[in-house]
């Protein structure tokens, strides 16, 4: 029974990683109604910025606080320069740009920062791991950060006028413009926030899986899965989805199908859940107009 418990704890720890990235995906979806495939690579790039600062002698939290606004600016600029001119273009053109960004961030990061694996510091202390070594201090700390971010997003969308305006701008740009919402500013803001959350996720993930230009490739799939399971319209759902994926991945791999079919299992579960609940476990079904 010990083994099961350990797998469970270990699954929660990995789930925390997926949840934090899933949250960034939900953010961009809420704010723009797109899923940005370059999100993971942007987060990786932000993490390198943070590492560069830390290596230059900037204390961790100061580097953290500098990286987040830099990432915000990066996101907002990308929206302004790349996405806004394509606002009226077919949706496929936006996807083309996302793929282009993905390739560029990955390649440029390798070029500037090299492909050598780099350790990334944790702010939560390197001390002895907890629960018999199955969850590190960092994993516990980063889960707490994810929850704080989640709470802030929820409060932001729920209680602030800005949050409401952002949701409106994404949901129905034309009507929003008519009632005086500055839609383009809202979209830029959304991109900025998503990039910031991505940066935080990157800084939380990197100490666990180490930093290299391909860091996010593996995480992104499971984050997608988490967001899909939980519902891409619901931040809380995405976080819960991320944890569920982490747990299922660990238990399934260890006890049910073996590691050789782990990915296939993840795929299967996504399909089954979405077939039963098309908007995810906690998502709202979007009713579209005729």
């Amino acid at each position, binding site marked *: 029974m010990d083994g099961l418990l350990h797998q469970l704890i270990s699954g929660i720890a990995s789930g925390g990683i997926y949840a934090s990235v899933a949250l960034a995906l939900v953010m961009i979806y809420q704010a723009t109604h797109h899923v940005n495939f370059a999100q993971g690579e942007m987060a990786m790039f932000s993490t390198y910025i943070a590492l560069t600062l830390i290596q230059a002698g900037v204390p961790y939290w100061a580097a953290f606080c500098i990286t987040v606004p830099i990432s915000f600016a990066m996101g907002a600029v990308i929206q302004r320069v790349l996405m806004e001119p394509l606002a009226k273009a077919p949706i496929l053109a936006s996807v083309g740009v996302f793929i282009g960004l993905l390739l560029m961030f990955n390649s440029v990061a390798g070029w500037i920062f090299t492909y050598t694996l780099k350790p990334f510091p944790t702010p939560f202390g390197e001390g002895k791991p907890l629960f018999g070594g199955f969850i590190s201090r960092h994993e516990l700390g980063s889960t707490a950060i994810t929850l704080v971010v989640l709470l802030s997003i929820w409060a932001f969308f729920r209680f602030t006028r800005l949050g409401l305006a952002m949701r409106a701008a994404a949901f129905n740009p034309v009507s929003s413009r008519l009632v005086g919402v500055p839609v383009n500013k809202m979209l830029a803001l959304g991109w900025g926030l998503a990039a910031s959350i991505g940066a935080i996720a990157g800084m939380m993930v990197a100490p666990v899986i*180490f930093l290299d230009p391909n860091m996010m490739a593996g995480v992104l799939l499971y984050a997608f899965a988490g967001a899909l399971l939980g519902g891409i319209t619901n931040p809380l759902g995405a976080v819960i989805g991320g944890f569920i994926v982490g747990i299922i991945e*660990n238990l399934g791999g260890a006890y049910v199908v073996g590691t050789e079919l782990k*990915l296939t299992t993840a795929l299967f579960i996504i399909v089954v859940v979405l077939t039963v609940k098309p908007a995810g476990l906690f998502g709202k079904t979007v009713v579209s107009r005729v």
Partner: protein
Amino acid sequence: MKRRSLLATAGAALAAAPLARALADTVVGVTATEIKIGNIMPYSGPASAYGAIGHGHVAFFKRLNEQGGVGGRKVNFITLDDGYSPPKTVEQARRLVEQEQVAFLFNPLGTPNNSAIQKYMNQKKVPHIFLSTGADKWGDPEHFPWTMGWQPSYRTEAQIYAKYIMKNKPAAKVVVLYQNDDFGKDYLIGLKDGFGKDYAKYVLKEFSFEVTDATIDSQAVSMQATGADTIVTAATPKFAAQMIRKVADMNWKPLHFLTNVSASVGAVITPAGPEKAVGIITSAYAKDPTDPTWDKDAGMIEWRAFMKKYLPDADLTDGGYVFSYGVCTTLLQVLKQCGTDFSRENIIKQAASLKNLVVPTLLPGVIVSTSATNFHPIRQMQLSKWSGKTWELFGDIIEGTGA
């Protein structure tokens, strides 16, 4: 240079040597002043980390040319990107052989990529030598007389671990962590060779992971739960570093064998935590650029001077550059042995006639030797143990079977 062969029958066209050689005694890819060498690397795509090897080659031949070249000729080194995608490798190989008319292909990277072009290269009778992959199948002169590997095969290395375990820890209970691709599977085969009929007695269970996975934590937990006391890890750097750290974090103290692919101090041990890796055993054939043991070593001083002058911005912890220097030095010896005859037949013949070549970046005692029946240039390795600061070599140089 267009070859029209509407009249040629299909079979003849396949076997036909390029026109240039059929016409006269001119040698393909070689002029009075130049030797054309082709190479394929993943500069883009998922394996772009290995692009460093190609950049190392370019620098090496730049130096060679500055020093006057070889056999009275300069090297024209053409390296192309395949994005680690086998279809692209085929395209680039054909471009090099048919369009650029290179003398031979040197050190293309990747097991699936080289598998895709091996048959083509042998049909065209173009040397396909010193490949960047540790698969065992490249040393098969009987069926593929134009293809030759370079580094010790993964399979040989796994055999060495199995033999060590049977000799020194006969009661060992072994678990294996392997990457679910050609690299990881070769270790499983090697362990099966090494343990022979006792495989089931020693190995409790094998655990796989995908390169696309985020972590191997779950596998590590399961491995510990089996009650094993010995691990063999066949994983690329990111997962190897995770494994080392997780094993230490779980307070598990098994005897840990680590593939030499991930033995880099800079790229694996330092990120994982040097204190967490104490006691890990690997087997090496080359010197680690990040290991202080070699700070005053003549070979590595030579390598550092080369890097400083020709690749001043490069990351010196990247083992790709050391690998590149070693394999290029081997090729240089082949070209020297060719004298002035750079025909394809002579190049493969000389590649198969290396005698006890000492390469500056290889471990003391590890030599490069080939023969007409032995297409495994490096077969020797030495075990080494991580002390907390450096890899400490122990035991004798071990000769792999090279089968």
